[in-house]
């Protein structure tokens, strides 16, 4: 049952990832990316990471992809046709390097064996939820990275606002 689910969701994720990379219109790319994100959230649930699956749906599929959609609509990119790289052999070199990367990584990934650490506490699953274990680790052992992550988000907000601000109000005061 799990195996069937893994293969189905895996096939959907790989197919939509290929659609993201190969289709021409940006709207199609964004929509297939959303499908990929949702498929990945399904895989996370299969892997007993329920909190991360929900965060993936809320943050990635719900916020980051919507941001992409907003930018596409704001810049009116559907009217603009981006001609893809006219040099065909350059594209096939790109595909060749990607396949080469996969062939180099695959032997290591195929035979990897790992030990157990024991902090996931899967056997206590109904009483202690994944969210609680994650929260406990995040607020005790990993408190400093957590605070730094919030500062990083603040910097990103300020950076995005400053970068996207129009300069037209400056021109009006200097006229």
């Amino acid at each position, binding site marked *: 049952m799990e195996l069937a689910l893994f293969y189905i969701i*895996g096939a959907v994720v790989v197919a939509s990832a290929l659609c993201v990379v190969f289709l021409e219109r940006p709207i199609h790319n964004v929509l297939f990316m959303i499908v990929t994100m949702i498929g990945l959230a399904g895989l996370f649930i299969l892997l007993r990471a329920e909190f991360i699956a929900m965060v993936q749906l809320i*943050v990635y599929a719900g916020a*980051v992809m919507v941001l992409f959609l907003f930018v596409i609509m704001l810049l009116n990119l559907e009217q603009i046709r*981006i001609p893809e790289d006219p040099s065909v052999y350059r594209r096939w070199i790109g595909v060749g*390097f990607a396949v080469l990367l996969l062939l180099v990584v695959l032997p290591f990934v195929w035979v990897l064996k790992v030990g157990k650490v024991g902090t996931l506490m899967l056997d206590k699953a109904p009483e202690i939820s994944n969210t609680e274990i994650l929260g406990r680790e995040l607020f005790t052992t990993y408190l400093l990275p957590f605070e730094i992550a919030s500062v990083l988000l603040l910097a990103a907000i300020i950076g995005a606002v400053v970068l*996207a601000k129009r300069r037209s109000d400056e021109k009006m005061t200097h006229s």
Partner: protein
Amino acid sequence: MITLNHYLVLAAVLFTIGVGGVMFRRNLIVILMSLELMLNSVNLTFIALARYMESIEGQVIVLFVMVVAAAEVAVGLAIAVMVFRQKGSINVDDVSLMRW
């Protein structure tokens, strides 16, 4: 029986597709999306390892990777909007100032 290696191979395939997208697409938005695909494949690797090593640290790292990815997308898209305003195009070939 799904082993760890099934998930790692899937993550490697997704990562490769993302790398291919970054390398041979000219549209800046699609390049950013392929970057997100690569980050998602890394998330899948971490979660799979967290499950099979029974370690919660894998999921903690994934949370931080998601934070960094969200911040990077916000700033990256702001830069893309600025580039579009300056050059009128988000084709990366048009914003190249290199000689060749």
